[in-house]
């Protein structure tokens, strides 16, 4: 079975059933199930998420992007700082960056006050964190490749054409 195709199909629509996937991949349900189980075990498939436009769902909840300056530790580099940051459930993504600052922390679905509290009382005091700059997202246009509020142009196609 074409594993890359399986992953692509799931990435586009994680809600496809095993029967649908078997049809799409021209394979058997059993084969699909086994492959998915293995990909989960190998941590290739790391989770299934719903793309949510928080602007619409809850007026108070925001997405924040925090730039973090940090000092590396002998032998461990930035990993020990990262390990402390990722443990907080408020953190939805954490990246080590090239450039002017070390980490990008992304927080989703919290209120502005909650983000401020998290930065002040949890993130900034971490050993090795030298400074933070917090930016709030004003409006979301596209998340994970999904255009929010998209009007599909192909709906203007004629119903029957040669």
């Amino acid at each position, binding site marked *: 079975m074409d594993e890359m195709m399986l992953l692509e199909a799931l990435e586009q629509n994680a809600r496809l059933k095993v029967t649908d996937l078997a049809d*799409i991949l021209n394979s058997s349900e059993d084969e699909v199930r086994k492959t998915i189980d293995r990909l989960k075990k190998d941590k290739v498939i790391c989770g299934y998420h719903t793309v949510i436009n928080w602007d619409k769902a809850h007026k108070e909840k925001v997405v924040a992007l925090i730039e973090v300056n940090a000092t590396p530790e002998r032998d461990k580099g930035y990993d020990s700082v990262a390990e402390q940051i990722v443990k907080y459930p408020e953190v939805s993504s954490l990246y080590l960056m090239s450039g002017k600052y070390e980490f990008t922390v992304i927080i989703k679905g919290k209120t502005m006050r909650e983000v401020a509290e998290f930065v002040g009382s949890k993130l900034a005091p971490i050993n090795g964190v030298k400074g933070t700059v917090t930016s709030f997202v004003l409006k979301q246009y596209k998340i994970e490749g999904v255009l929010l509020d998209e009007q599909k142009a192909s709906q203007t196609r*004629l119903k*029957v054409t040669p």
Partner: protein
Amino acid sequence: MIVRDRLNPTARDLPKSGIRKFFDLANTMEGVISLGVGEPDFDTPWHIRAEAIYAIEKGYTFYTGNMGLIELREAICDYQRRRFGLEFDASQVLMTSGASEGIDLVFRAILEPGDEVILVSPTYVAYSPLVTLAGGVPVFLDAKEETGFKVTKEMLEEAITDKTKMLFLNYPGNPTGGVMTKEDYAELVPLIKEHELFVVYDEIYAELTYEGKHCSIASFDEIKDQVILMSGFSKAYAMTGWRMGYLIAHPDVIHAFLMIHQYAQMCPSTISQYAALEAAKNGDDDIEMMAKQFMMRRNFIVNGLNRIGLKCHMPKGAFYVFPSIAATGMTSEQFCEELLKDQKVAVVPGNAFGSAGEGYVRISYAYSIDEIKEALARMEAFLRNKGYLK
């Protein structure tokens, strides 16, 4: 004056396309889910649209030369070399307003009254009427599902007469999704050479070939002067509305096309030509992304159709499935009308593509998996209501 009597009877009396009839019916209904469309559902990739916008901003809104932009014709030669290993010179490439203009040009430039053109039925709807309008005579080969809707040496041999001027091929094909291989063509090449036939090869779906690589009949050196390659940007790059096609042929043949094209068309849309230039140069990734999506949908719909009792083989190209509805005992038109009325699903009757299409329907899978899934569920309900599925 009775205007009707003063019209050219050939044009006036051409049969209405079977698709058009069905389109009129489907369009009057609400809540129809259609699998009747012959164009991709993807948006034209943004970088291609952006080039068209820049072209307008820069004021590239004048005529181009009759042949089309030289940069574009050179880019098409690069594309043909890169994708299919074929060598052409830009002087052999004529840009047309969609492959559709190309179809009309080849018949008008080559046919003399009474010349026969061999078409493969089921066939795309435009070929036969345009042969007739050009004064030629369409001769149909009935392709069979069992042989993957291919043309065999025996079929071709039987159809050739001393009037035969042209063989018209379209693989991957609309409406069947049939594909021919290098070996299949090799069988036909000696006959084509011996009888000095022109071969028009409509390969608009070339990039939508799912198993193995697309093989063009233009790759056979012994008949290379006789082959007219017809293609365009509509299906590979989701650019149907841009109307960008091209013909590639021997310079003398191109010259004859140009004589008509320069007066009837002048040149295709300049803005579309700039968009096509971007597509030909930087669109390979788009082609591959869309082809992969089509392949997944093809697998999904074919497995689904077989499960609900509409038996069909896995087509190897284009974005159509052509299942048999023989088991229902209905004609193609009955089946499609009943399905539309009963479950509001639009598919196209196979006989719209010639008599060899009777007993089949054309189903397009240029739709999202969710739309196909919904259509399959409705078709299953239809077959169950009618008692064809237990």
